[in-house]
């Protein structure tokens, strides 16, 4: 039968089954197609894997994943979230009732921190979270019972017949060859025989259930028959055994006599569990397993686990895969593991991906796959066909790269050895590092050459991390705005406005010291760590003690508890400052970004969970504590360094002075940008502050996505170019123009769409935040470009003192603006505050802002031209300007 004709017949058959099993009275929403598509993909293969000959060229490709798959899954996930938004009440009930599942996912999210590949783990976690979202879409449907029936019917009618069609008529999709034994296997719509077994198990059981439960006997009978045939050809004994047990359980519990006894299902399930435990784990049924044609050691897994379990394992995070690899590497040379020889018979190590998940055999020779085209022995397996070692035609047919995909872990093994030349090595940079050697000397990753490439790529990693962090933050904003009132937000912001100033004491200062210093060793770093930790502890105690004063300042007694709780964030942050700075100095931006992203995910998950459980503003407090806690844990895991005891060092005092200057500048700028929050909270209370701050955050978040990674990388890179003015200027102007091009565009766009954006993102009840967002965007985006970039100059040339003085000048102007705004509020009513006075004030501010921009331009130019450290600053401004203007043509090396 020609494949085309068979396809037509199968399509007709599928349509007939849909018609036979239709439920005209079932009221299911169209949104059910979203989980249906999700389940079709999950039950078969990813979109990119449908391409004939689709193969993973390198582990990098595996780690990065397919953009098409990412796009499709993200689209489905976004659509599912959009469906759940109007069903928020039902979703909330679902989540409340399933809090343990959320806790489990929160733990899984936290485990990203100690994963060897946090980026990949985070993607997997997001994908797994998608399953929960899809379940929620199904269970929040108007008729959940009908929705479950339709979901299984749609997927069963498509996947099972399609598997038969592919196996019979499209072998390039439906069949493959075992990579070790070269025996053919049947995969159908799935990848690998086990995949086909899972499909038959799940959807066969679903059809069996519908067969007993009033579904179309013809349609579901056909599906069950096809599933049984597929079981037979797939030779998936485990799945078939599970299908048999599940089918028996279904049949027993649906017998009219037994169905009326409530304890029947429990008794039968318990009996089956005991039997399986006895047979599989206590080796009581060795003969039974052997009779199913299976290895009694479960293909060597029991032997492997005997070895692995003897190893020392950390109680909570378990054994890191990289450490297992290190253990492997102690047996084999690293080069043998990682680099395939360029000529001669090539082999791919099976042990590379994840020991414990991949296969291992006792025989060293059997660990290696000899690529057929190059000749060489094939591992001898019982029942496996042995193609000739030099049989090019046959080898080409075998398509070794397509076969034998058992699970995600084994996909790493799919790297075709012929593609592993000496120029491509399947390894990713390790996330963790030891910053100092035994002598206490710092390890530079890129000494000298390749700085630009590392810096730009570092910025890439950082931007990627920031983008994912932005997505997480936006999800949190959208969800929490619907769970927590503006007044609750305002209450927490009242305290964080103070606490963030203290939290940044070590963060802004010591970080720059570590980055900017030409030499860094373990003694200096240890001193910095203990100074940061000690000051963090003192500030924590002081802030907790000042809780009554904060409450009195704002006139709200609830702030006492909030202040004391949030004081812990100061100490937690101070403990990770030096570790994170060392990672940045080593240009491990990927590690820093991943850590930041994972910490945000943990904090957001905690806040959403607690908000759903009705904790109100305490959910936000918990998130504020979880963020530095997770960051600290990640920083210590990634930067493997334990500080020494503090020692006297003459270089410490200048470093503290530098750090204080940086912090002074930060404080001035912080007061500049947060004066509005102080005054609004003080004058108008929590709710108006909540509106204002949410709007401010919505504006500042996207801008920070660009500016903060650029700042991290720019200060690192510019610091190393401090003695090359031409290169320095080129780097700087390039970064500034990029920031201006994108930042000003975002600002103007938010001005135009601010009100609608607030309405869409935050939902009803937040309308008052719209005008705030529209008004402040353009002005602030222009200011931000200047604010961030002139900070780069001061820090990179080691003149934090200049930054401090500029911050004071800048702050004076902003404080005047905010004082005017607050006085308007006290004189007039809120209507006046929202309209005329603010509009008039904004006009003045635009004029002031324009002149300010011109001044900043002058400042930048002068800083670029005279970037040598000066000892006479601050001199009088007149002397400074008159003495320091030079034409660009006269610029030369200092």
């Amino acid at each position: 039968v020609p494949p085309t004709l068979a396809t037509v017949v199968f399509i007709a058959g599928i349509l007939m089954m849909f018609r036979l099993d239709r439920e005209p009275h079932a009221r299911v929403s169209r949104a059910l197609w979203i989980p249906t598509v999700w389940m079709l993909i999950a039950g078969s293969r990813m979109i990119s894997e449908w391409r004939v000959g689709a193969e993973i060229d390198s582990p990098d490709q595996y780690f990065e994943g397919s953009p098409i798959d990412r796009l499709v899954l993200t689209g489905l996930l976004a659509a599912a979230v959009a469906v759940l938004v109007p069903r928020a009440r039902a979703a909330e009930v679902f989540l409340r009732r399933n809090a343990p599942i959320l806790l489990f996912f929160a733990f899984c999210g936290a485990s990203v921190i100690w994963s060897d590949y946090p980026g990949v783990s985070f993607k997997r976690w997001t994908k797994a979270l998608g399953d929960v979202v899809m379940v929620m879409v199904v269970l929040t449907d108007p008729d959940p019972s009908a929705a479950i029936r339709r979901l299984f019917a749609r997927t069963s009618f498509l996947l099972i017949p399609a598997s038969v069609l592919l196996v019979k008529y499209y072998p390039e999709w439906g069949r493959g060859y075992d990579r070790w034994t070269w025996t053919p296997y049947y995969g159908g719509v799935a990848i690998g025989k086990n995949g086909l077994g899972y499909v038959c198990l799940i959807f066969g059981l679903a059809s069996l259930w519908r067969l007993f439960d009033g579904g179309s006997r013809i349609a579901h009978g056909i599906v069950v028959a096809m599933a049984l045939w597929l079981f037979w050809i797939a030779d998936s004994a485990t799945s078939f055994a599970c299908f048999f047990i599940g089918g028996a359980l279904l049949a027993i519990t649906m017998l009219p006599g037994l169905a009326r006894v409530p304890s029947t299902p429990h008794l039968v399930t318990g009996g089956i569990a005991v039997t399986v435990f006895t047979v599989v784990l206590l080796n009581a049924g060795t003969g039974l397993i052997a009779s199913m044609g299976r290895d009694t050691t479960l293909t060597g897994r029991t032997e492997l686990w005997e070895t692995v379990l003897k190893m020392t394992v950390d109680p909570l995070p378990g054994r890191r895969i990289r450490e297992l690899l290190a253990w492997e590497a102690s047996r084999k040379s690293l080069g043998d593991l990682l680099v395939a020889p360029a000529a001669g018979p090539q082999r791919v190590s099976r042990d590379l991906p994840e020991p414990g998940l991949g296969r291992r055999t006792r025989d060293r020779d059997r660990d290696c796959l000899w690529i057929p085209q190059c000749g060489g022995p094939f591992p001898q397996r019982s029942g496996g066909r042995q193609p000739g070692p030099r049989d090019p035609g046959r080898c080409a047919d075998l398509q070794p790269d397509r076969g034998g995909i058992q699970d995600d872990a084994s996909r790493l093994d799919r790297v075709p050895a012929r593609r592993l030349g000496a120029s491509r090595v399947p390894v990713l940079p390790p996330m963790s590092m030891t910053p100092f050697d035994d002598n206490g000397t710092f390890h530079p990753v890129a000494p000298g050459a390749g700085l630009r490439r590392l810096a730009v790529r570092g910025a890439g990693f950082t931007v990627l991390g920031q983008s994912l962090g932005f997505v997480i933050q936006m999800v949190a904003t959208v969800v929490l705005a619907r769970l927590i009132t503006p007044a609750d937000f305002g209450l927490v912001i009242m305290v964080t406005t103070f606490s963030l100033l203290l939290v940044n004491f070590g963060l802004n200062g010591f970080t720059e010291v570590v980055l900017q210093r030409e030499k860094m060793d373990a003694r200096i770093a240890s001193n910095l760590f203990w100074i940061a930790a000690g000051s963090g502890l003192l500030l924590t105690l002081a802030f907790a003690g000042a809780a009554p004063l904060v409450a009195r300042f704002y006139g709200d007694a609830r702030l006492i508890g909030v202040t004391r709780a949030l004081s812990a964030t100061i100490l937690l942050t101070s403990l990770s400052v030096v570790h994170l700075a060392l990672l940045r100095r080593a240009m491990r931006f990927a590690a820093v970004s991943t850590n930041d992203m994972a910490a945000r995910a943990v904090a957001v998950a905690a806040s959403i969970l607690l908000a759903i459980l009705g904790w109100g503003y305490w959910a936000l407090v918990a998130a504020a504590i979880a963020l530095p806690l997770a960051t600290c844990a990640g920083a210590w895991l990634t930067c493997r360094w334990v500080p020494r005891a503090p020692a006297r060092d003459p270089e410490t005092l200048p470093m503290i002075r530098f750090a204080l200057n940086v912090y002074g500048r930060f404080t001035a700028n912080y007061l500049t940008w947060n004066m509005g929050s102080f005054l609004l909270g003080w004058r108008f209370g929590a709710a108006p502050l909540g509106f204002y701050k949410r709007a401010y955050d919505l504006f500042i978040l996207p801008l920070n996505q660009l500016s903060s990674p650029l700042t991290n990388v720019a200060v690192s890179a510019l610091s190393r170019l401090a003695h090359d003015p031409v290169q320095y200027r080129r780097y700087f102007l390039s970064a500034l123009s990029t920031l201006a091009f994108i930042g000003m565009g975002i600002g103007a766009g938010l001005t135009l769409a601010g009100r609608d954006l607030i309405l869409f993102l935050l939902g009803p009840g937040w309308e008052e935040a719209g005008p705030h967002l529209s008004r402040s965007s353009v002005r602030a985006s222009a200011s931000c470009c200047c604010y961030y970039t002139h900070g780069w100059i001061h820090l990179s040339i080691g003149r934090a003192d200049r930054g401090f003085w500029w911050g004071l000048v800048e702050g004076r102007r902003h404080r005047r603006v905010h004082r005017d705004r607050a006085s308007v509020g006290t004189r007039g009513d809120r209507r006046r505050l929202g309209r005329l006075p603010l509009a008039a004030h904004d006009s003045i501010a635009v004029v002031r802002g324009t002149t300010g921009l011109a001044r900043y331009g002058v400042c930048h130019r002068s800083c670029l031209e005279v970037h040598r450290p000066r000892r006479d600053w601050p001199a009088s401004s007149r002397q400074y300007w008159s003495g320091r203007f030079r034409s660009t043509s006269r610029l030369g090396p200092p």
Partner: protein
Amino acid sequence: MSALMRVVAIAIVFTTLYLLAVVIVHRGLEPIRQVLRLAGHMRPRRPSIERVQLLTSA
């Protein structure tokens, strides 16, 4: 028209006009090219052998 539709419409129109304005002011596509180049350089790539040697020796 819903808020989302308005946001999308404003974003499309504004982005078009903004890029047009940038092209007119700079008399060319250089700023856009510069950003695209930068984004291209930031894209993670396969590590070279030199990079791997650095990492494995570190």
